[in-house]
């Protein structure tokens, strides 16, 4: 795979809006999970809710797109000078040569959930101001971002559950290599909604405490929300040594079960091996793995087996979902950015909430931060339907 440059990136999640608070929270091992008080939800669980989403106002000409998911998207775009960086890229490449490829699992389905409560008592019709295309439909978030920047290039939403915003990196890399585009806004946006909260509850996968990935007492996931955006371009000749590069992406399918991982993590192994192959690297080149690490007993066990099979226990690993919650379709993008911060800032983020590391999973799980100088990191994202994607990121120098 041709190497790409993460020329600009930004993350907004429960641990902070933008890179500085995100980095600070990781350094301080501070989590963003709080008891769920979202909407009318009556579940005993913790969520990673982003503060201030409700007060975000969309520009008047994009008012049709108004919903929690697109408000979160705009809140995310406004951090770290990301919008100016995109405008500069448009200046370099042109509106048709910048793609928008974003991941989401539920987009603005919350609008439909709320609209169903307001059905006309006689006709059953949804409220007049409900707009399916610009809110509920999965494409709405990429459509919104494309409109924010008045872009005219290729665009798509990848919606493969919890691997969505990792797979967009692979799609962008292919489009770049084919010569269709010169830059891409990738990443993902997923926001709290009732479908995922009550859905994971139906599977008995919601933790009653802040989630504890790879803990012997792990009891399921905590759902979070996030907006993660990355501007991908071809590397320029004179990159700073702490510039972050996408070195490889690997994808696979479990072909096993709709909501349970392959017990030996076979699909996960294939995705990690494919990412290494695409990067032209061996396992010993990886200095840190940001695990998918959802904190369900079966997911962590399967991923642990897959990592142990490929890497043994040599590579420090952690899941950052104890801090952010599982941000579902935004997780791949968010965790790629956490990997990029590790590379730039010289540390390995320990997974929080994990007190007693499960001794039956033979990997080197970090539950405390470690100062280090990682050169290359791997980030895993796996999802319902047996969809797997791994990314390899590295420093330019």
């Amino acid at each position, binding site marked *: 795979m041709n190497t790409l440059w993460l020329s600009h990136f930004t993350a907004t999640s429960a641990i902070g809006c933008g890179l500085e608070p995100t980095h600070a929270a990781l350094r301080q091992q501070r989590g963003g999970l709080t008891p769920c008080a979202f909407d009318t939800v*009556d579940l005993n669980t913790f969520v990673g809710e982003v503060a201030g989403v409700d007060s975000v106002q969309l520009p008047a000409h994009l008012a049709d797109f108004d919903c929690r998911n697109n408000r979160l998207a705009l809140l995310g775009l406004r951090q770290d000078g990301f919008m100016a960086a995109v405008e500069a890229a448009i200046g370099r490449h042109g509106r*048709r040569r910048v793609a928008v490829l974003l991941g989401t*699992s539920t987009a603005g*389905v919350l609008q*439909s*959930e709320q609209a*169903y*409560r307001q*059905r006309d008592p006689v006709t*059953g*019709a*949804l409220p007049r101001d*409900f*707009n*399916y*295309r610009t809110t*509920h*439909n*999965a*494409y709405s978030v*990429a459509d919104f971002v494309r409109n924010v920047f008045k872009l*005219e*290039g*290729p*665009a*798509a*939403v*990848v*919606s*493969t*559950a919890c691997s969505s915003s990792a797979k967009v990196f692979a*799609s962008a890399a*292919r*489009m770049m*290599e*084919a*010569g*269709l585009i010169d830059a891409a806004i990738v990443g993902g946006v997923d926001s709290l909604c*009732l*479908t995922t909260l*009550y*859905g*994971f509850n*139906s*599977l008995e996968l919601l933790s009653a405490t802040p989630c504890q990935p790879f803990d012997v007492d792990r009891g399921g996931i905590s759902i979070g929300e996030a907006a993660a955006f990355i501007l991908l371009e071809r590397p320029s000749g004179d990159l700073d040594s702490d510039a972050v590069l996408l070195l490889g992406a690997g994808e*696979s*399918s*479990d*072909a096993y*079960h*709709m*909501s349970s991982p392959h017990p030996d993590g*076979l*699909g996960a192994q*294939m995705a990690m091996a494919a990412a290494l192959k695409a990067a032209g690297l061996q396992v010993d080149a990886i200095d840190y793995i940001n695990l998918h690490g959802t904190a369900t007993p079966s997911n962590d066990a399967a991923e642990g087996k897959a990592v142990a099979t490929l890497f043994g226990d040599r590579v420090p690993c952690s899941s950052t979902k104890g801090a952010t919650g599982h941000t579902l379709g935004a997780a791949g993008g968010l965790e790629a950015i956490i990997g990029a911060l590790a590379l730039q800032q010289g540390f390995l983020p320990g997974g929080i909430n994990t007190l007693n590391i499960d001794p039956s999973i033979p990997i080197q799980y970090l539950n405390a931060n470690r100062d280090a100088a990682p050169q290359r990191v791997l980030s895993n994202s796996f*999802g*319902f*339907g*047996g*969809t797997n994607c791994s990314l390899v990121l590295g420093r330019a120098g």
Partner: protein
Amino acid sequence: MTLPNTILTAWIEGVGLLGPGLRDWPSAQSVLTGNAPYVPSPMTAPPPQGLPPAERRRAGVSVKVALAVAQEAIAMGQLDARQLSTVFASSGADGDNCDAICAVLASEDRHISPTRFHNSVHNAPAGYWGIASGAMAPATVLCVYDGCFSAGLLEALTQVTVEGSSALLIAYDSPYPEPLNANRPLPSAMGIALALTPQKSALSLARIQISLTDAAPNALDDNALEALRRAIPAARGLPVLQALAGKQASEVVLDYLEPLRLAVNIEPCN
């Protein structure tokens, strides 16, 4: 404005088609070429093949349509499904399932079933396809509202070109019941699949080349088929199938994403 002229090339090995009045690819060809009348009639999705009994029971309309056209294309090309990466393109997840979840979540008892939930993901058909076919190859699932067919074709040909491997495009849609149907009216479920390879084989139907363009999209001559093309995102691919059925070199332009369209050049083999 001059567009950079990136042309992506592949060979079409198999076709799958299922829609209202379009039972399968062999019987639809004479309809698409105008040699037989198009008679719109309700679409019946066959029971999905290759799934264990539990998954077969749980499969909704979109899974049935996606698997039916995928399997038709694979069988026609005499391909090993496990060797093809897949590109699913759909403007929505399963419409009936989404309505059922929204209705339960708006009620006093919000208990939704685990099957409803795992069927709610946009990539449910891709998951069922993996289980049915045993394919552990990459599967991606796109949504571009009405531009899904072209987005999927672009992704599939990009994969074939860049990875040098075969890919299966599966474009499909399923309608919502009321009340969502009033906001997103789709008259029927429908699916189109194309099996694409990087090299010509003895079974290749045609060479396909695509590029981005500003040109106006093609309409279909038959009024009822044109109405179908405009009504269902997957049906936006019908001009490609018409060109294939015509067995003559031709170029068609597909709707994609304003202001871009997709120019598709079809060069039949023999």
